[in-house]
């Protein structure tokens, strides 16, 4: 079979292709974006799409699955928060065609607002989760996830992290297996979660959980590699690679299925070694579980809970090896940092020049423009998650009175507005806020690589489609003061911002100019 160097995300796309996946959905988000981009580019057999947000993406995939197709939804860790509502209930309904959710965590928050550990979500949603540790496994595990999903009637989460998503390695390719789309069979007891239906489904999934635990115990996903029995290390995901690199002689239990956990295998492994360690990124998920089984082990006392691991961190924690000193430290001058920054000529730059000059409180959002919180603009003062800025803007007005809205704005990008900004704007109008929202419409999802969205008039596969008219939408919400302007005319923009912020009623400024990197 052909061997190719693939990015972890490309390998996942390949796994979906080989599994005969029919439908794939996502909203772009680092480090998960390339999964759908690869599917759209290389595997046209799969109908793929950007959805407006992760909740919709997961629901579209659920519809495909429930009606008999094999479906995949991909998202970053915080995206699964947005999609948590459908996740928790489609856990109850189960599937028809295989249903795989790819969740990409971002330890070290390289391109995220937090570094949450979504292994907890598998447990909370009672959904099996498997974790590849390299691109080859990323492909193989994704493929397997579709089979597991159908065998156990559960959605299955494939959890990757930045170092799996964005690292490359050699992958042996296989053929696509053509799987027919099964018929949709009406079954409200399974697919309509009325309380009377949900209760027996809960009982059912607890039974499935037991079966999955048996599977976890016998599955090659969880593998003991016996070495020196003095020290045994339980590990998962990319941490496994760091353990193999730095502790080649030790015994290792590699966890590939992290939920449900393989109790018997853990017991067998623990009994076979003198001292037991757990090496995992972020939270003590495995460690707490092992301790709850009554097995003593060492984990977070020596392995940091914050930020991603590296081979150096593992080497130091387990072997006491500290490197450094091969070269002297450069100390004559400070080394200037090179933080990411808005591109020269970025349309957002004009907006923040004005906001800085007017010294307004700026409720920001998620996108390239979040960088305006840093110098030279330093003109963003709050930011939480996708769409949060508009709701916070209203909240400030509620706490301080309308005069607060006379000295503040909310700013949000076009893609983020479509993702999560519409409902808070409805709230602002409905609850009689008077604030100004600036939609910085740069005609794409720039931060993650200029993907299309409903406002650009193009689909993921590049087809023309209806262009969502933001101006019309905002007016329909009930905003009477709507101004569309090109921010490049900074003086004009300043005049408009002054006027709209001063006006004692809701207003929206659509600052429209294409990102300079979009062709």
């Amino acid at each position, binding site marked *: 079979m052909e061997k190719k160097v693939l990015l972890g995300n490309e390998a996942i796309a390949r796994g979906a292709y080989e599994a005969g996946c029919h439908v794939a959905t996502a909203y772009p988000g680092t480090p998960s974006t390339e999964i759908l981009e690869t599917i759209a580019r290389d595997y046209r057999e799969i109908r793929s799409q950007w959805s407006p947000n992760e909740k919709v993406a997961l629901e579209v995939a659920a519809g495909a699955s429930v009606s008999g197709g094999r479906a995949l939804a991909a998202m970053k860790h915080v995206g699964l928060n947005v999609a948590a509502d459908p996740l928790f209930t489609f856990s109850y309904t189960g599937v028809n065609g295989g249903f795989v959710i790819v969740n990409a965590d971002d330890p070290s928050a390289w391109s995220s607002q937090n570094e949450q550990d979504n292994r907890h979500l598998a447990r909370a949603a009672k959904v099996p989760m498997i974790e590849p540790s390299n691109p080859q496994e990323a492909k193989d595990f994704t493929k397997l996830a579709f089979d597991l999903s159908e065998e156990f009637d559960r959605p299955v989460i494939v959890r990757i992290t930045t170092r799996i998503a964005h690292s490359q390695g050699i992958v042996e390719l296989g053929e696509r297996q053509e799987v027919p789309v099964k018929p949709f069979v009406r079954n409200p007891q399974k697919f309509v979660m009325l309380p009377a239906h949900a209760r027996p489904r809960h009982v059912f999934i607890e039974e499935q959980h037991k079966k999955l635990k048996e599977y976890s115990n016998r599955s090659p996903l969880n593998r003991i590699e016996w070495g020196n029995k003095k020290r045994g290390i339980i590990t998962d995901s990319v941490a496994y690679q760091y353990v193999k690199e730095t502790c080649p002689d030790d015994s290792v239990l590699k966890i590939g299925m992290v939920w449900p956990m393989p109790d018997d295998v853990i017991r067998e492994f623990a009994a076979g070694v003198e001292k037991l360690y757990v090496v995992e990124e972020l939270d003590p998920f495995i460690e707490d579980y092992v301790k709850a089984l009554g097995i003593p082990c060492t984990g977070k006392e020596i392995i940091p809970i914050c930020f991603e691991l590296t081979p150096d961190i593992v080497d130091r924690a387990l072997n006491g090896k500290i490197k450094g000193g091969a070269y002297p430290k450069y100390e004559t*001058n400070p080394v200037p940092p090179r933080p990411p920054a808005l591109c020269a000529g970025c349309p957002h730059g004009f907006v923040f020049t004005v906001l800085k000059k007017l010294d307004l409180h700026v409720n920001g959002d998620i996108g390239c423009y979040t960088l305006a919180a840093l110098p030279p603009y330093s003109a963003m003062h709050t930011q939480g998650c996708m769409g949060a800025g508009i709701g916070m803007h209203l909240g400030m007005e509620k706490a301080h009175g309308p005069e607060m809205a006379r000295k503040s704005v909310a700013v949000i990008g076009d893609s983020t507005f479509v993702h999560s900004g519409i409902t808070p704007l409805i709230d602002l109008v409905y609850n009689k806020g008077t604030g100004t929202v600036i939609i910085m419409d740069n005609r794409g999802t720039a931060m993650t690589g200029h993907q299309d969205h409903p406002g650009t008039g193009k689909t993921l596969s590049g087809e023309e489609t209806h262009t969502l008219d933001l101006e019309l939408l905002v007016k329909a919400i009930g905003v009477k003061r709507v101004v569309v302007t090109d921010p490049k005319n900074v003086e004009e923009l300043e005049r408009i911002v002054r006027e709209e912020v001063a006006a004692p009623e809701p207003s929206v400024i659509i600052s429209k100019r294409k990102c300079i990197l979009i062709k």
Partner: protein
Amino acid sequence: MKNVIFAGVGGQGVILASKILMEVAKNAGYDVKESEVHGMAQRGGSVDCNVRYGDRVYSPLIPREEADFIVSLEMLEVMRKLEYLAPGGRLIVNTEKVNPAPVQTGAMQYPPDLREWISKNVKNALFVDTSGMLKEVGTRKALNIVMLGILSRDLEFTREQWESAIKSLVKEKFLDMNIKAFNLGREYN
């Protein structure tokens, strides 16, 4: 096992350079792993790629003091990666400076003595002025491939192996430009 770090600034093309190296190594029968940076950091921030090849590679990240080569497309970026260079490891530096934001705004200065300090403290350093070669290629975008060509002089693979890897990864219309850039680097002295 060989470990190579490509360092630079977002947009300089370190990912393509490492992809080509990986392809060459894979075709030569080696196991290959790599780690790269996407997303926010790419907006003009510091970026780097770790490439490793050998009989069996586990970690996609190179441990400290184990890089056989650091290829830096910008001089300041050397300072952020030097702790990864193996004792005696080879450092290949493009002498061009790209001012980071704090220097552009005047808040900090670009350390004036970097080159001097590096040549004093890193015995195996090669400073390259790529401007002439880039002029000859006709585009500054070829910097990554010129630097890859320079690196290639110290690696075991043949010119044919490199060219076939470049062919498989570069778009047809940019192929001649990239092959030219690669060979200029490879013949640099």
